[in-house]
């Protein structure tokens, strides 16, 4: 029997009021300002910008406050916000070689032209809880040294001369796919794959990248280079016809260099995987580059044998807003669906017992 139900409005309103109360917490503790989140929980802000696919630190900080620190909820809020704004156009491609470097490391070239700088990193810390932070002790001022003026070329350019490493080819004004305008279709080109990975869930991509290291689609990766810092975004407005600076954008870039045995057409050379992410997120950029390379499997005539190489699997499941939407919708009322299932199971049980009875009678 179909029963239409209505109600719960009062309960919903009161639940949201309670949520606001719990979000605020005990009032004898100072209210958290979005500016504090933006400056002191900067890596959470970076993650929300990257996966929310919207560069706006102040907005991401506010979303984190609103979501009580639930980052996927904050990402959802940011995604919803972006749908309310018109799009002015697309920027000139960011020139990461002109980055104001804040961190730059290579696991393959010790003496990198331009040098290796560690920058603000958790690497080499002992991962011991620092109780001084709870005591509110001010940190010592950072050490200074004469600034570098050497250019910092991409590490992948160093091997380019010998053809030992696959070269990227920049062609003219070709169409750039945009999955926010056209639904993904398979097989998807690398531009669409990179867009999906750049906004994909860090945890999901981390697990997939890890799976390739453990043997599920091995790619023999080396970190050619990781760099983090600000690059100037440029945009050509229609009415001006020349590029204007929009402002600095902080990004992390990872160049993964992978072994490749070659084929009948291609001599042996290193192939590449690429990661580019808003903000400072090395884990995400590295995972992205591992999965980017894994998804290029077919391009190199290799067999698709592992989940990380299966683009339909990866791209259909890497978006955490889509994923959480479908998983969490299960908690919404399914009374009618369940009623139907209930009726079906009852009928099947009646038939089952009737059959059992018949068998018993036949045996006797």
């Amino acid at each position, binding site marked *: 029997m179909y029963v239409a139900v209505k109600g719960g409005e009062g309960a919903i309103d009161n639940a949201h009021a309670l949520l606001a109360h719990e979000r605020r917490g005990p009032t004898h503790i100072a209210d958290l300002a979005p500016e504090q989140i933006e400056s002191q929980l900067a890596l959470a802000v970076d993650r929300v910008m990257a996966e929310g696919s919207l560069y706006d630190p102040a907005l991401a900080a506010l979303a984190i406050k609103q979501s009580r620190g639930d980052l996927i909820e904050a990402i959802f809020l940011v995604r919803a916000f972006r749908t309310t704004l018109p799009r002015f156009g697309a920027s000139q491609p*960011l020139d990461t070689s002109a980055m104001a470097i804040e961190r730059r490391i290579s696991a393959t070239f010790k003496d990198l032209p331009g040098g290796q700088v560690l920058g603000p990193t958790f690497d080499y810390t002992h991962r011991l809880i620092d109780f001084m932070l709870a005591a509110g002790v001010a940190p010592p001022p950072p050490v200074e040294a004469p600034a570098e003026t050497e250019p910092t070329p991409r590490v992948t350019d160093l091997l380019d001369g010998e053809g030992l490493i696959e070269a990227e080819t920049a062609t003219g004004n070709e169409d750039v796919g945009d999955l926010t305008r056209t639904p993904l279709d398979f097989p998807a080109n*690398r531009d669409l794959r990179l*867009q999906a990975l750049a906004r994909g869930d860090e945890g999901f991509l981390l697990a997939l990248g890890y799976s390739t290291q453990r043997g599920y689609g091995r790619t023999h990766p080396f970190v050619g280079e990781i760099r983090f810092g600000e690059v100037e975004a440029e945009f050509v407005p229609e009415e001006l016809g020349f590029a204007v600076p929009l402002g600095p954008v902080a990004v992390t870039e990872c160049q993964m260099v992978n072994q490749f045995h070659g084929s009948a057409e291609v001599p042996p050379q290193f192939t590449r995987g690429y990661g580019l992410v808003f903000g400072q997120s090395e884990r995400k950029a590295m995972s992205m580059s591992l999965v980017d390379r894994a998804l290029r499997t077919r391009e190199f005539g290799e067999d698709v044998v592992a989940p990380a190489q299966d683009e339909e699997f990866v791209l259909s499941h890497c978006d955490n807003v889509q994923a959480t939407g479908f998983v969490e919708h299960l908690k919404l009322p399914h009374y009618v669906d369940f009623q139907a299932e209930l009726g079906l199971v009852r009928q099947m049980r009646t038939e089952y017992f009737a059959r059992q009875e018949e068998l018993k009678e036949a045996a006797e």
Partner: protein
Amino acid sequence: MAACTAASPDELAATLAGVPHPSEIVDLRATESGLVMLRGRMGGDGRPFNLGEATVTRAAVRLPDGRTGFAYQLGRDAAKARNAAILDALWQGPERAAVEAAIAPVRARIEAEAAARARRVAATRVNFFTMVRGED
């Protein structure tokens, strides 16, 4: 223009206050916030792809003498974008020197911060050395 994008809203308001300008300024287009899709390149130098969007606010103004000014800036601050557009219009005429002088402290602040950051980063440079092998 680059100094205007990196300036704080207060800095830009102070910059504009430091340049004599007419009060009858017409908006050629209502100042509005929107999105610009930021692009990257595969491998840093290959074919372009869409990295993700950024909020951008744009303003377009006209001075009584007919000069026009434009601004496109990251973020959602309408007043700041409009101030930048007015400065852009003023810069294209006799007030150029006054605009340059008014924005000089902002530029100096941005450069000093970038230089301090570069010095702090330089202190984290890794200097590798080879250990002497103990074969003899």
